[in-house]
């Protein structure tokens, strides 16, 4: 089983970054860049947009670091900023992603049900399409919980949504993904 992520970054690095240490900020970006990219790619239309948003998030983080008060877990704080950047980006391009979704769901079933087509490239394209077929809230909850491995407690702080609602979003995301991928329904 692939672990969702590595440990949170060392607290001393955070402390140095908060007071403006550029080397510490560089370490922070190095530590989280791939995870941010993974999250953004799953949330957005395409990799180029994900790159944009990850950069935007890190810039916001850099500017907001002096305000990080350690009242919440650092990763929760980080990912809230990233999730908000993704949300903003999606609202800018909503019309076009809807179009993509309507194309994707039909194709998804075709590819998955043909085992000889389930090579890496097709499979990843299929996953991208299937994720895009989820409503934003469900996709975000699913990716936060299952892909990046956040607990529901963290997700409550991160999203500001209560736990029961988050669990429902995750469950609905799972059901929809299974349906789109042609799997039989779960109980």
């Amino acid at each position, binding site marked *: 089983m692939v672990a969702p992520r590595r440990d949170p970054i060392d607290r001393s690095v955070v402390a140095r970054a908060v007071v403006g240490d550029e080397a510490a900020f560089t370490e922070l970006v190095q530590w989280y860049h791939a995870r941010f990219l993974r999250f953004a790619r799953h949330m957005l239309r*395409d*990799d*180029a947009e994900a*790159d944009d948003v990850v950069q935007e998030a890190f810039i916001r983080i850099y500017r907001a670091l002096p305000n990080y008060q350690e009242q919440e877990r650092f990763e929760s704080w980080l990912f809230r900023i990233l999730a908000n950047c993704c949300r903003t980006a999606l609202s800018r391009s909503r019309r076009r992603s809807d179009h993509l979704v309507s194309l994707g769901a039909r*194709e998804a079933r*075709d*590819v998955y*049900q*043909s*085992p*000889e*087509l*389930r*090579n890496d*490239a*097709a499979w990843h*394209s299929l996953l991208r399409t299937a994720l895009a077929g989820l409503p934003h809230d469900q996709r975000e909850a699913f990716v936060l919980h299952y892909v990046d491995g956040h607990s529901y407690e963290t997700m409550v702080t991160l999203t500001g949504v209560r736990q029961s609602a988050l669990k429902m979003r995750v469950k609905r995301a799972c059901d929809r993904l299974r349906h789109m991928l*042609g*799997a*039989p329904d779960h109980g």
Partner: protein
Amino acid sequence: MRVVAGIVAALVGGPMALRAQQAPPSAVAALPPGLDSAARAALAPVFARAVQQGLPVMALRVKAAEGVLHGVPSDRIVGVVTRFAERLVVAKAALAPAQPDEVSDGANALGLGVSASVLRDIRKRRPATPVTIPLAVLVQLVTQGIPASRAGDIVLRLLERGASTQQLAELPKVIDRDVASGVSAERALDLRAANVLATLGPRPLPALPTAAAAAAPSMPVGVSNGNHSGGRP
């Protein structure tokens, strides 16, 4: 008397001077600013010929203007534009019936080593719709480092299999990203094109998997006659 004067001018001023006098005003007007007089004299007949042949004169203007902007020596501009005009002729024939921008992109493709037969084949696969995007993608792929023949093959194959303009237009974009992460452009094209081809028809649907199949995804129950009817991408 006029003819004699013309011949004298030709002997004295060279063939260019004669032809510049004969270029129609519209061709001369299409010449961009910033060219020196020698370049104007050399290009006016080229433009005039393009007008006569129904070629996109604006494309010639744009090509010349680009050279002017970049401070390219004027004799080089003349050479580039003249050769471009020759390619416009070939592209127009290969892509007939062609819109001006198709002719222009076709000429760019030819300049990058794409053959006229590839252009003809592109038109054959899209006889009634614009081939602007396939040409644009083809040119872009070659500028990204894909050998012209390979790029032509792939674009034709995708057109054959019914790829949408959206799918085509995505290709150079994702290849740029792949190249940025260290993959060669050709390998990236292979992978990405295979990806697109995998999602295109014609392909019969295999039967829905049962619960047993879902538990062991490598053993699809639906293909019980042992015949993998899906085919290779």
